[in-house]
């Protein structure tokens, strides 16, 4: 039977290497997610300001221990029920809405049996274009984080090669 000797040792070394990289960018992950939070708040169109306040609410960003390794998991979102209630309309801002002509019917919630209710439109409602604020901010965060992650990989690998892995 053929096989490659030392493959388990190599895998363990790679795992230790990636753990070291993950630990070294923990702070960056938190900082970049906070930067994304700030960017979403800057980009989101504001009327009453309720959506922007929900995005900036401390409950929207939580840091927990990562279940996958030694790093952290940073959660940013409007999944907390009180925030979701305040900012449900941000979905329509992000993706846009259709327009309605006079006389057409518009969805107006659900009745007690769960059936859709409709109401007739008296004045035309123009379609609203998508005004994405979340996806551009998220894409920018990943771009910055990827750059930092690649840099951390290079620095960690260089330190190991030079026998300086334990030095910051």
């Amino acid at each position, binding site marked *: 039977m053929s096989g490659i000797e030392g493959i388990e040792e190599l895998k363990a070394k790679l795992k230790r290497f990636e753990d070291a990289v993950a630990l070294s960018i923990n702070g960056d992950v938190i900082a970049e997610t906070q930067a994304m939070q700030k960017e979403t708040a800057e980009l989101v169109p504001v009327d009453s300001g309720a959506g922007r306040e929900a995005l900036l609410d401390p409950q929207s960003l939580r840091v927990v221990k990562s279940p996958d390794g030694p790093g952290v998991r940073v959660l940013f979102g409007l999944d907390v029920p009180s925030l979701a209630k305040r900012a449900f309309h941000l979905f329509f801002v992000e993706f846009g809405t*259709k327009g309605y002509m006079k006389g057409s019917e518009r969805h107006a919630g659900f009745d007690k049996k769960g059936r859709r209710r409709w109401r007739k439109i008296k004045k035309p409602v123009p379609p609203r274009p998508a005004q*994405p604020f979340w996806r551009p901010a998220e894409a920018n965060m990943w771009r910055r984080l990827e750059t930092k992650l690649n840099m951390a990989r290079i620095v960690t690998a260089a330190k190991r090669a030079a026998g300086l892995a334990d030095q910051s």
Partner: protein
Amino acid sequence: MSSIDFAVQKAIDALLVPALASLQAPGMSAPGVPVYDHAPAGSAYPYVRYGRKIKTPDNLLAEKMARVQLSISVFSNFRGQEQVDEILARIEDTLDDASLTLATGEAVRCDLERADTTIDADGVTYMGSAIYTVLVNP
């Protein structure tokens, strides 16, 4: 100096209009999906509309380089997501990694950032949304 943001939109429009004019997506009786910057009230479905443009400086390689993120929306009343997906696919074929010729400045790259489909609150209208990032050098 004229707006490079609008030059990006015009360059994208020059590629997108002919590409969508020949598209006959499922549910359409004839080819042709119109593209609007400002959709007139009562526009027939399906149609494509330009949305938000965001310019972010990206001056790692050159002083004035920037990324222009352009949102493109698809509106459809076809039952199900197939029509929206077909239109988004044609847009991707046309724009992802496309060479854009700008009236002002230069487009270095054009990449698809994200494409989504969603349904309006009416439960009838399907919407697609794609974001393209164009790296520009004025």
